[in-house]
């Protein structure tokens, strides 16, 4: 009899816990979804930060713009009635005037109307050099005038045609009435308690613990969002995150630490890991100029890496296939150049694939003979003095496991052909620091640097900054991003061509030319492209994972099965 009662209790317990896992048994609408994020955003203002974590939360609340980028990488109108194009005369024939029309009856989350004046205000803020904005400011300095003939229409005039005119308004609109002075954006109360146009509104923020978002009654899509609330919990420890998913305490996990095969086995019946193409492209950057000589310009070539044959040898020494499949268990895909996704994707084959014999041959030819300790030394090399060891520092940033695994794997690959790579990892803030902070890559004090980089649907600014010869960082030009000190006139002209055309194919061709030049000239070697991974509870429905969105992008469509 006792046993029967016990069994009954167990069954009852199971039934109750099954219901409790999700939205309290609510079938299609309502309920709460708990999302796990590894770190706390410092702000909910996308423009005030360059940290990827901000959008993970802000996409669901503060950051709804005139347009968005959908899962196909295409622009779609959100707050705007339609995208301004040549066909609907939203874009003038000289490409210099753009007319945005808002939907009718739009309201901010506090009930005040969204008007064309808010578009004007957003431009005023993002074009203000004192705003302190760190992201999303591209092209705003090109807008010379803004007319608002009525509450729904904003007419923007550009000083020159700007191909990224849609991208500018895909990240968010700022409310004039609820924010503050443009020059004071860093101190806006709005940043941590935003009035937005997104599907949810921030209702509480427990610092270091969680952010709670509740349904925005003024959201523009009728009947949405389906859920009552979203709770973002901050859990830094990957194992603890997965344990929460295991206990059904959370329904959405950002970047799980486990590989998909292990994750799915562990969480069978509860959650599944989804992999989608990401934008984070892992590559080794080479410093083509001499390090530690106090001269950040490209004037003096790097004693070892200045010789292209050494770079070719390094590229040939890396076993890409094993790195991607064995070390990273297929959680990444192959990538050979920066343009590895999106409308500008260039599928270019490697010129120097894995071939250790070729690597040895190239180094022999380049005047690097095998030393007694298995590391080569210079004997008739192009720039290095005889007797120089073929020893290079490999810098990276700390606390990111896949990066460290990649470094350790490459060190062994290079050792096999007589190249010594010494890992030297620094904190994120040092690796990505500024010229004034003496960040090694900015002042040209590095040999090789490995990290993951990516850009969005509008690639022009990023790539111009990274590859144009005028962007080599120096004391006079401290913000430049050409850390390789790469000077290639063909690349320079391709970058100008890509930035001055509205024709997608023309632009893509120009970018592919740059991609090919990188493969030929090897200022960097691309290793692999990360896939974004998300753990999602099996009872959640309606979500669409997008390369271009964050975890909470499209949260208005989520519901429980």
């Amino acid at each position, binding site marked *: 009899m006792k046993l029967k009662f016990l069994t009954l209790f167990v069954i009852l317990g199971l039934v109750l816990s099954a219901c409790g896992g999700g939205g309290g048994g609510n079938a299609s609408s309502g309920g709460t979804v708990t999302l796990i994020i590894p770190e706390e955003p410092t702000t909910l203002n996308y423009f005030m930060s360059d940290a990827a974590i901000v959008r993970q939360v802000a996409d669901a609340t503060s950051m709804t713009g005139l347009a968005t980028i959908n899962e196909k990488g295409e622009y779609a109108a959100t707050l705007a009635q339609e995208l301004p194009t040549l066909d609907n005369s939203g874009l003038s024939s000289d490409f210099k005037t753009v007319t945005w029309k808002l939907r009718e009856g739009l309201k901010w989350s506090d009930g005040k109307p969204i008007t064309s004046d808010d578009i004007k205000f957003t431009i005023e803020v993002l074009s203000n050099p004192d705003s302190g904005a760190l992201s999303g400011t591209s092209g705003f300095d090109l807008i010379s005038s803004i007319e608002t003939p009525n509450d729904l229409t904003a007419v923007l005039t550009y000083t020159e045609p700007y191909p990224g005119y849609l991208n500018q308004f895909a990240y968010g609109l700022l409310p004039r009435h609820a924010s503050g002075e443009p020059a004071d954006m860093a101190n806006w109360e709005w940043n941590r308690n935003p009035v937005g146009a997104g599907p949810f509104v921030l209702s509480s923020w427990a610092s270091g613990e969680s952010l709670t978002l509740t349904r925005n009654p003024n959201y523009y899509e009728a009947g949405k969002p389906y859920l009552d609330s979203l709770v973002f919990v901050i859990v830094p*420890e990957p194992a603890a995150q997965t344990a929460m998913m295991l206990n059904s305490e959370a329904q959405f996990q950002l970047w799980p630490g*486990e590989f998909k095969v292990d994750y799915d086995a562990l969480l069978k019946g509860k959650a599944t890991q989804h992999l989608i193409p990401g934008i984070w492209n892992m590559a080794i950057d080479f410093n083509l100029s001499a390090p530690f000589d106090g001269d950040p310009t490209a004037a003096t070539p790097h004693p070892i890496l200045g010789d292209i044959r050494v770079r070719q040898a390094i590229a040939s020494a890396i076993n890409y296939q094993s790195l991607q499949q064995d*070390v990273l268990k297929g959680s990444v895909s192959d990538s050979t150049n920066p343009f590895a996704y999106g409308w500008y994707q260039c599928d270019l084959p490697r010129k120097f694939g894995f071939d250790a014999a070729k690597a040895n041959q190239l180094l022999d030819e380049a005047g690097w003979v095998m030393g007694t300790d298995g590391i080569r030394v210079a004997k008739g090399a192009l720039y290095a003095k005889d007797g120089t060891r073929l020893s290079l520092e490999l810098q990276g940033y700390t606390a990111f*496991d896949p990066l460290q695994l990649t470094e350790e*794997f490459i060190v*062994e690959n290079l050792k096999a052909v007589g190249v010594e790579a010494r*890992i030297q*990892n620094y904190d994120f803030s*040092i690796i990505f620091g500024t010229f004034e902070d003496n960040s090694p890559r900015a002042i040209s004090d590095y040999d090789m640097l490995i990290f993951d980089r990516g850009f969005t649907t509008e690639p022009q600014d990023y790539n111009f900054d990274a590859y144009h010869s005028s962007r080599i960082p120096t004391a006079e030009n401290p913000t430049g991003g050409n850390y390789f000190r790469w000077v290639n006139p063909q690349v320079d002209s391709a970058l100008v061509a890509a930035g001055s055309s509205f024709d997608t194919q023309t632009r893509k061709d120009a970018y592919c030319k740059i991609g090919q030049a990188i493969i030929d000239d090897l200022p960097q070697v691309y290793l692999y492209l990360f896939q974004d991974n998300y753990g999602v509870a099996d009872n959640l429905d309606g979500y669409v994972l997008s390369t271009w969105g964050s975890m909470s992008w499209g949260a208005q469509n989520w519901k429980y099965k």
Partner: protein
Amino acid sequence: MARVILRRFFKHKLAGIAIAVLVFLVFASAFAFTTPYSPTDQEPTNSFQKSNMDHFFGTDELGRDVFTRILYGGRVSLTVGLLSTFLSIALGVLIGALSGYFGGGIDSILMRITDAFLTFPTIFVLIILGAFLREQQVPWLKNSVLIVIIIIAALSWMWPARLVRGLFLVLRERDFVTASRALGGSSSHIIIQHVLPNCIGPIVVSGTLQMASAIITESGLSYLGFGVQPPTPTWGSILATAQNQVFRAPWIAFYPGLMIFITVMAINYIGDGLRDAFDPYVIHIEK
């Protein structure tokens, strides 16, 4: 006297065993090269193997032999753990003893210095130090174990110093100290012969705790850009990277954890033995 102390020490059976274990660990690390693998040899197709006859402790995410890496890791971890603890305790005891015994002006000065060190926000000091060392283009300095030992000791001697001062403040008022002073005992005699032996217990406990934290701190330092860099293994770094694999390969975290545990236990028992050996009451009875 020395013979009495030694005899007392080895009478504590666990202390004897602990010494043997510690010596064994040191030798195993020193002779790590006798294993058939190198700590950096990779075999990525053979990753995450469980313990087997080829790999006693299994393999890690790059297919490296965990047993070999633990042995090599012991070199850095034991050196850092033992030396930094010794240095920190030695400095702490010296300052604490002088401060507590003499009191007055000396106490004020030494304790304000101690307080000053305690108020340093460790992480910022380390970041500044890391930036400073980065700009000195001397790789061996940046990544040397010696620097790690000094840094850890420099940031941890304050706790034993405070502890010892407290003990001295109490003990210096005791009758046996007054008696020794009346008999003409010099300050150094009283401190070393009479007061210090009575403090061994608490000092040892604080030392044991510091040892474990030093081994972990070492791996934290490499996150800030100095200290030992990958792929050189240390127990702390193996433990840190294994955390992300805890569902897939819990054993990778288990073995370095076990080694740290064994080392700390050994130090603790050795400490127990030392306390018994130095216990003034027992020594006097036996003499």
